[in-house]
């Protein structure tokens, strides 16, 4: 229950932080920073995909858990900046779709984080249980290896998370292209 509250809290904090930051920018007369924050946020999110490259072994240096942590932090921070950039405007469909998709992807990412955390707990619980049955270390590990729970959960989750991420990425790219086409750079 606590873990669920933490992850819901992280999502709520994302929205709250962006509302406060947007209000602060307006109060300081820095409303023009919106566009820059959109670019900065998108870049942070883009850099966070280094995790996917590491996972697919396109990048081979560094520990995957460190990349995952980086992915979580950069994607969350980048999303705050993008939300500050977009605000609650719904006039044009494209940026609205991109922003909504981003929020859904963040929610999905936090769900994945929660599932991973739970799966790890289940794994640790199974290890403990097998050990309590008096099995040797090697036997415990061989039984745990057969535990498909973690793999199953994460595979199902990825089947949702990756298409949503694709939708967000393509909508954001199209929005950026439209902005470049219509605005002066």
């Amino acid at each position, binding site marked *: 229950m606590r873990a669920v509250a933490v992850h819901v809290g992280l999502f709520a904090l994302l929205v709250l932080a962006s509302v406060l930051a947007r209000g602060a920018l307006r109060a300081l007369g820095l409303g023009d920073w919106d566009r820059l924050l959109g670019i900065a946020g998108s870049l942070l999110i883009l850099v966070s995909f280094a995790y996917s490259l590491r996972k*697919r072994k396109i990048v081979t240096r560094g520990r995957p858990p460190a990349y995952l942590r980086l992915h979580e932090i950069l994607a969350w921070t980048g999303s705050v900046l993008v939300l500050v950039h977009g605000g609650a*405007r719904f*006039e*044009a*469909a*494209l*940026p609205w779709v991109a922003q909504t998709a981003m929020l859904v992807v963040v929610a999905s990412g936090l769900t994945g984080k929660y599932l991973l955390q739970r799966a790890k707990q289940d794994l640790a619980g199974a290890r403990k249980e097998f050990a309590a049955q008096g099995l040797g270390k090697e036997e415990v590990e061989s039984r745990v290896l057969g535990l498909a729970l973690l793999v199953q959960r994460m595979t199902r989750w990825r089947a949702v998370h*990756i*298409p949503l991420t*694709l*939708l967000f*990425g*393509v*909508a954001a*790219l*199209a929005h950026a292209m*439209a902005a*470049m*086409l*219509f*605005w*002066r*750079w």
Partner: protein
Amino acid sequence: MRRLLLAGSGLLAAIAAASVAFPHAVLSPGDVAEGHAAIEGDCFACHAPFRGPDARCAACHELAGIGSPGRPRFHEALLERACAACHTDHEGRAAPRAVREFRHDLLREDVRGACAGCHLAPADTNHMGLRGECAACHRVEGWKPSTFDHEASFRFDRNHPADCAACHPKGLGEYTCYGCHEHEPAEVARKHRKEGIADFEACAECHRSGEEDEVEGRGEEGDGGRGRRRGRGEGD
């Protein structure tokens, strides 16, 4: 990975098609102003690709004609043509024309300093006789607060209090030291001629206060009557 790329490309193509078919619904950040309503569906009537709207405003809006009736027209005197720095659109039919306040630093320097080109001279007694010296007291950021360092011209004292009309009977643009018993024209002339000073009409140029010994010289001896002065604190 290949499937992802394929799906992404398909999605991008679908968005592009929707943008062409329904540009207003897909891309427009809001309704354009009433004056632009007739061209709302033609994005490129205002937006030059990759150069934004600034490049095309002047195609319809002649710079010399921009401005409200009875207000100064200054758009021709702007340093650069960056219309979107002050104006915007897509904020609704009845949105205000300008979203930022006018700033003098957007004007060319020669126009910026020529206040009377846009502003009427104040008709109050404080400004009578003043011509083109606005910056001595006022800043372009606003008419108020205004400042004037009187001590840079003349320092008040017990015998010379801040009684404007005593020295500025015709307005603050000019002054006279004559008119009180200490400064009768004949007596002033006599004293200066005795010292060999022929040009003594602009009193405050040398006398910055009522102190008799405080006389600031502007030249050397033999400079046509202006040389016999001594600087403040230079001794007797």
